[in-house]
């Protein structure tokens, strides 16, 4: 089908964009990469009064390094993330995950800000934001604010943004030294949304886990952190028995749904399998004697 009628404005800076959003009183939609918005318009699932195109705002797509963090502009395309040396150096888990987002033509257009704002319950980047304790910077005509990624995702395709706000920047705190990572997902076909995905980071000290992070997606309405599984890993060395306990804690923490693609039972099973793979890889990569990824 074809999109419904709408008005269209090209924002030349963030001020113009948020002013247009404010004028539309929540009836506007932001057009970033358009890889989720355009299908919804073509299906006429949405009828915005106006599209605010942010693609021509200079300086909204960037990857910068500060002392403690990596800052990513909301308009950064998936392909830029996939190939950025700063991301490969500091967040190889993100480089790995973003290569699984859609197909090349989608990664060329799709943006990190768009993916987080759309918040598909099986998408990789929202899970990465939650895994890496991202802080999101949001602007509106009324001012700016920041929100932690863990508080941003409220429900399936529902985030802490009202219709007049624009996500502008994602800040990822750098990982401690000796942090290993793992990511894996199950898809029917490369580039599809995951039936389930898991990612982990393990920070080690003298063969003991001092910090553990486990994030999952596709197993509930929002990406989530498996806090119970994380805390039982801390202070221990990784082995099969500990892995089994972590898997059990993950399966306990999630409430996946049955849909056309997979049953709840299958998703719960996969979440455990993928957690095991992610943790095993993170442990292997985090150990100094086995630094090769």
């Amino acid at each position: 089908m074809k999109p419904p009628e709408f008005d269209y404005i090209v924002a030349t800076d963030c001020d113009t964009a948020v002013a247009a959003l404010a004028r539309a009183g929540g009836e506007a939609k932001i057009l970033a990469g358009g890889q989720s918005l355009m299908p919804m318009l073509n299906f006429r699932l949405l009828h915005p009064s106006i599209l605010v195109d942010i693609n021509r705002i200079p300086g909204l797509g960037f990857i910068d390094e500060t002392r403690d963090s990596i800052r990513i502009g909301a308009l950064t395309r998936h392909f830029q993330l996939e190939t950025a040396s700063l991301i490969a150096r500091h967040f190889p888990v993100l480089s790995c995950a973003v290569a699984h987002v859609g197909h090349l033509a989608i990664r060329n257009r799709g943006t990190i800000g768009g993916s987080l704002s759309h918040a598909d319950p099986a998408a990789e980047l929202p899970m990465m934001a939650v895994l890496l304790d991202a802080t999101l910077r949001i602007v509106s005509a009324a001012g700016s604010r920041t929100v932690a990624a863990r508080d941003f995702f409220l429900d399936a395709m529902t985030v802490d943004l009202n219709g007049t706000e624009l996500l502008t920047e994602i800040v990822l705190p750098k990982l401690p030294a000796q942090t290993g990572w793992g990511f894996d997902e199950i898809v029917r076909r490369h580039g599809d949304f995951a039936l389930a995905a898991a990612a982990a980071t393990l920070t080690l000290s003298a063969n003991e886990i001092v910090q553990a992070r486990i994030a999952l997606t596709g197993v509930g309405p929002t990406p989530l952190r498996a806090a119970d599984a994380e805390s039982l890993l801390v202070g221990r060395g990784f082995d099969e028995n500990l892995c089994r306990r972590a898997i059990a804690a993950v399966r306990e923490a999630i409430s996946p749904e049955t849909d056309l693609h997979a049953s709840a039972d299958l998703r719960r099973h996969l979440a455990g399998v993928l957690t095991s793979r992610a943790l095993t890889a993170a442990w292997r990569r985090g150990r100094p004697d086995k630094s090769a990824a």
Partner: protein
Amino acid sequence: MKKTCEIAVTVNGAVYEAAVEPRLLLADFLRHTLGLTGTHVGCEHGVCGACTVLVDGDSARSCLMLAVQADGRSVETVESLGSIGQMNELQESFHAHHALQCGFCTPGMLMTATDLLRKYPLATDDDIRKGLSGNLCRCTGYEHIVKAIRAVVKTGKKQ
């Protein structure tokens, strides 16, 4: 409500100026406004890949872009690759390896492969298959398409 927008788009090296409705899809602009029907429209929601074109050199679904977004940009369609009399290397390879049957998916396959060959080493057939996973061939002729692209990878020439 603003009814039309003036745009100027470079398509296959020529500049086209037009007044378009904001909701006009780039795919429909190419096919209906410019008459460049080489770009095929399948699903109209970014799943089949038939409408893939290059925008400023990067592959993109032309059903997921508005024509107004292409204002000032350079778009390349399958018509830019070659002609029946003078096909480019990738097209020759598709011909030689029987990589098209009904031909509906072919423009999207060619434009996707063009971008893949520029951006990835495509060291294995599995890499090629992953790269093509966003392009559906309902004749299921994937095997020959992979072979055609593999042959071009082997020549090592930049697309």
